[in-house]
């Protein structure tokens, strides 16, 4: 019944707009609908019971002509999507005060998460493209909907670069279709295996990967990302940074690289190089930022680099580490964005030079941000440490010593910019003018605490989590 993951939200949105859009009281139901949807999504993914996932709803599926497949990688992505969407939902409830705006936001949020659910379940490259566009279009609207100059600019940049990515990917899909006679992953993989050295195929692979680099915001295709993250309303930045770029860019990269052209050394070399450059460029640029959200955006670029670097090792352990880091990153980065949303809402600014000592007035926000940033820097026993060390060990085992050293040493730069963030925003003496500051509302605090608890819990109970969720991911290489 995996198709329910698409159909329920789709019809849910239609019904919400037909029936519930009439008055403000009924619009509130959208929040609860979305919450229930995301929670049940997480639940079915965590328990991944075969009765739900392996049986198909015959009449429904054949009517809509869809067929999906799921594996452990998809489950992890489902959990990420559900979790970050809930975080985004609560932040929206807190930051968007007007009922109509919130209703629109929730509809778009459900559509975006629907698109991402599609991305992670399809098994042919064209459907992948379709769902990617669904996600992208909902994201443009989400970024643009405050209709301020800044947000329109951010949305526009994202739109243009996404269009470029689309063109690249669509051309690549066309070439691959010509070369292999099909668009399913299986057909393309066998087509590529037959004509391994055809320059046309290499060209197509190159185009597709470039498209994904743009979607994932990796250096040198990262130009749109900081603007989009900064300009977007707080709840949207949570969503974008937490999952959208990961599902559309990074997840697809993992899926494509492992199932379409496995064991391809040139591709792996490119991935590792781009990954390392992203780690350093993202981290070094982040040091100079004055805007809280912009710093987080550059930090995202840097952390994406780690994921790509792990993927580039091409070994099961490296990919497991990459997926693990993807999960961890979506937890702690959305936590940091939730914190930034709370700070922005309460103080009215994201400029770190105008903030200071906020921890005293917002203790929960301050404490959870410390946990999140320590995890990002890879300080044990938090979750980020384990995923990073797995990636480093995988690099070491494949004798990429230089990359391993660089990956480890980049942590010190990460630590440097986050310590400066802590010092300027949370730690230190309370800045004058902020005496009347209040802590964020309870929903957002609950989200922060839960995300922080996940970061700590995954770190402390790492072996349990790793064995059950992450290790099975290795099987995507065997297939």
């Amino acid at each position: 019944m995996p198709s329910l993951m698409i159909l329920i939200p789709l019809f849910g949105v239609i019904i919400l707009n037909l029936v519930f859009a009439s008055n403000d009281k009924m619009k509130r139901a959208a929040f609860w609908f979305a919450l229930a949807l995301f929670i049940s999504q997480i639940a079915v993914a965590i328990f991944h019971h075969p009765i739900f996932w392996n049986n198909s709803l015959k009449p429904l599926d054949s009517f809509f002509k869809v067929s999906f497949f799921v594996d452990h990688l998809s489950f992890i992505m489902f959990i990420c999507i559900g979790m970050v969407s809930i975080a985004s939902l609560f932040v929206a409830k807190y930051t968007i005060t007007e009922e109509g705006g919130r209703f629109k936001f929730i509809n778009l949020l459900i559509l975006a998460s629907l698109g991402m659910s599609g991305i992670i379940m399809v098994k042919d490259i064209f459907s992948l493209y379709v769902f990617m566009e669904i996600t992208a279009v909902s994201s443009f609207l989400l970024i643009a909907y405050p209709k301020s100059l800044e947000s329109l600019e951010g949305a526009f940049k994202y739109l243009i670069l996404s269009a470029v990515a689309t063109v690249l990917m669509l051309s690549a899909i066309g070439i691959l279709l010509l070369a292999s006679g099909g668009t399913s992953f299986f057909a393309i993989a066998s087509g590529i295996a037959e004509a391994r050295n055809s320059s046309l195929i290499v060209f197509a692979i190159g185009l597709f990967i470039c498209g994904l680099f743009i979607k994932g915001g990796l250096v040198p295709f990262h130009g749109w990302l900081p603007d989009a993250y900064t300009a977007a309303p707080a709840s949207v930045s949570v969503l974008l940074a937490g999952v959208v770029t990961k599902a559309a860019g990074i997840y697809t990269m993992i899926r494509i690289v492992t199932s379409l052209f496995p064991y391809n050394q040139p591709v792996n070399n490119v991935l590792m190089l781009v990954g390392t450059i992203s780690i350093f460029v993202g981290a070094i640029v982040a040091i100079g930022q004055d805007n809280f959200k912009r710093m987080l955006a550059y930090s995202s670029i840097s952390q994406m680099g780690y994921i790509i670097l792990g993927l580039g090792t091409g070994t099961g352990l490296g990919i497991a580490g990459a997926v693990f880091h993807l999960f961890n990153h979506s937890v702690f980065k959305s936590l940091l964005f939730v914190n930034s949303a709370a700070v922005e809402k309460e103080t009215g600014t994201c400029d770190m030079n105008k903030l200071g000592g906020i921890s005293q007035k917002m203790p929960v926000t301050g404490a959870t941000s410390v946990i999140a940033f320590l995890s990002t820097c890879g300080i044990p026993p938090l979750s980020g440490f384990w995923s990073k060390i797995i990636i480093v060990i995988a690099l070491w085992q494949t004798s990429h010593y230089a990359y391993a050293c660089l990956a480890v040493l980049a942590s010190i730069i990460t630590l440097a910019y986050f310590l400066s963030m802590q010092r300027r925003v949370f730690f230190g003496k309370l800045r004058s003018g902020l005496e009347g500051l209040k802590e964020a509302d309870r929903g957002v605090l609950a989200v922060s605490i839960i995300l922080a608890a996940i970061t700590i819990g995954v770190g402390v109970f790492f072996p349990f989590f790793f064995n059950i969720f992450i290790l099975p991911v290795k099987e995507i290489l065997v297939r």
Partner: protein
Amino acid sequence: MENYYLLGCIFIPVLGSFLLPVIGRASEFARNLTALIMVSASLVFSILLAGPVLAGRVITISHELPLGFNFILTADALAVFMAIVSSLVGAIIVLYSFDYINHYGNRNEYYLMVTLFLGSMMGLVYSGNLILLYLFWEITAIASWRLIGFFREKEYVLKADKAFLVTVFGALLMLLGFIYIYQITGSFDLPVIKAAFKTNPVPDIVVILILVGILSKSATLPFHTWLPDAGVAPSPVTALLHAAVLVKIGVYVFARLFIATFTIGQIWHTVVPVIAAVSALVSAGAALVETDMKRIIAYSTVSQIGFILLGFAVGNEIGCAGALLFILMHGLAKGGLFLCAGIVEQNTKTKDITKMGGLFATMPVTALSFLGCAFSVMGIPPFGGFFSKYLVFSGAANSGNMWITLTFLAGAFLTIIYLFRIFNLIFLGDAQKPPAREGSRVMVISVAALAILSIAGGILIKFPSDFVQIAVKQMMGI
């Protein structure tokens, strides 16, 4: 039963520390007392472990986990010795904090971090797996970062960030060294690594990587600058971090890895003493010219750590035993010095020794305790510091490094000069006006206890030295 002692020793303070802020909301006193009980629990359990360990047993808890990140705790004589030293000094410091910290903000965070810090110190000394060791190593770094930035002034927080960055930088290099070892041996477990390097020394690159971690944590040249800067922390914190526990982590790991687990190339038995000698001399010189009381004592720590490193690095039994005793004696005495400085600072509201004088008249107990601890650090018999310093020297002389031994003698001479200088300027001379009061009873008792322990350690030298001899035999596999 011993297994529970071992687990309790680590996890009572580590997990319990997170209860402290909750208790603190209900009652300040209950929280302080709980913190003290948790830290004392480590001490008691470690002492209980000492019995079987001294009888020659090694207590091990081991649990297999994926990827070689195994959970292994080992209690041998070296580990138990370190645990007793750090929890003993830690408990006295927590007691001292009762009165010192009670008129500052962020008290909940303070007790949380101190207890967490001491608990992870226990975890670190009992770790039998490199990743586990690294994990606790970084928890101590997090705790010390928050503790150094306790007074939320901007420059203080900057210095806390600096300490964090320097130690994490070293730790990351050390981690690379660990991964290198993992690549060679296929395991992070110390026993497996020990078996793999039984005949041949580890590659020099590994020694360099791990050494950077050790030097940065133990604040040895060229990574020492964070330590004097971290003197901005409250005095019990500086005592805890700089004297008794944090800086000892580095030398402990040196002993644990380079002596007890694998052998290092012959060249390192010369290189490390040279680094230690330079560090000892340079920082002793800095201590001579500084005027900030806490910076002087901090530089003195950097200098004395050099002696400990020398003892471990010369690679013979006597030096090693001396270094272990040095850890104990220096922890007690230097902790006492910092705590005395805390009393003086709190009651005179200054840290500049040129603005003090004549405090002997008004705070005699503090002055006498300071003098006792200072004698021990100088190495004057019958204080405990004498025996440890003597053994380190004799170990160095036995190894044939005459020049290095002479350099350290000069360092020891400088120690005497700068400690007398600071004592003179603070406690002797003209009395300042208005005269400062003596510290509160709990604080004075704490410093007096440390001074008495310092002299008792010298008079009753038999007990620690018996312990140390067993530890050295175990470490060197004799």
